[in-house]
């Protein structure tokens, strides 16, 4: 039994390391300033931006669009292009 529990404990601690190394978003070049990203998003109808954060080369934006629908975007930080929309 110890072995099973020990294995589980080890697995959990390993997971800990894996979980902290989160996925990164590939983007080359200098990131655009937040204000510029915000402007681009607003122009595209993503009007109510709740959170705009920079993570490993990408901006992540969440909020509500013109129609009041939720959006969750990944944006190439260098070009300001939307990579994925959820």
């Amino acid at each position, binding site marked *: *039994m*110890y072995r099973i529990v020990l294995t*589980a404990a080890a697995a959990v601690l390993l997971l800990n390391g894996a*979980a902290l190394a989160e996925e990164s978003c590939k983007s080359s070049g200098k990131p655009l300033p937040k204000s510029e990203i915000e402007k681009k998003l607003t122009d595209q109808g993503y009007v109510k931006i709740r*959170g705009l954060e920079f993570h490993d080369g990408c901006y992540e934006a*969440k*909020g509500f669009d013109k129609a009041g629908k939720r959006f*969750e975007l990944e944006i190439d930080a260098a070009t300001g292009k939307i990579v994925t929309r959820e």
Partner: protein
Amino acid sequence: MAEVAFQGRDGLIRVWDPFVRIFHWSTVGLVTLAFFTDDDRAVHDTAGYVVLVLVLARIIWGFVGSEHARFRDFVPSPRKLVRYLADIGSCSARRHLGHNPAGGAMIVMLLITLLVTAVSGWLSETDAFFGVPWVSHLHHRAAHLLLPLVGLHLLGVIVSSRMHGENLVLAMITGCKRRRSGRSGGSQM
């Protein structure tokens, strides 16, 4: 209200009532599921909501449940906790039928962390808090704090099982423990 002590074969006594056990193993399963499905909203969210309901029920059960399910029975004072940890160091830690002071402190931390994780996860799906950075940060932090806590919890289970010659994992399945410390008789491992 207190459960009548059921004493059966081999001096076994009912320690963990059915709800405590169902809560424990359902939480193990659902948190694991939620952990691996954070990109599958439907599954992740459902698992999280069930965990939230379970944790709230467990907290109520901590006031009205069976003897060893109650907070009164296992939430230690800081002094008691420090003393117990020192006792482990000097090999004189006493066996507890319910949670020992270190285990009790662990459960308080786990319940609080589970509650914060589940509530922040739920909030992040409401219109009022969707996309609000501090809510999702809190959710991630709390969820990731669960990992070292679970690791410590498992370590505590091993140490305590070895110290007193009993199988605490089995006890959380069957609900039964020996009335007396396992060193003197019977093998359960």
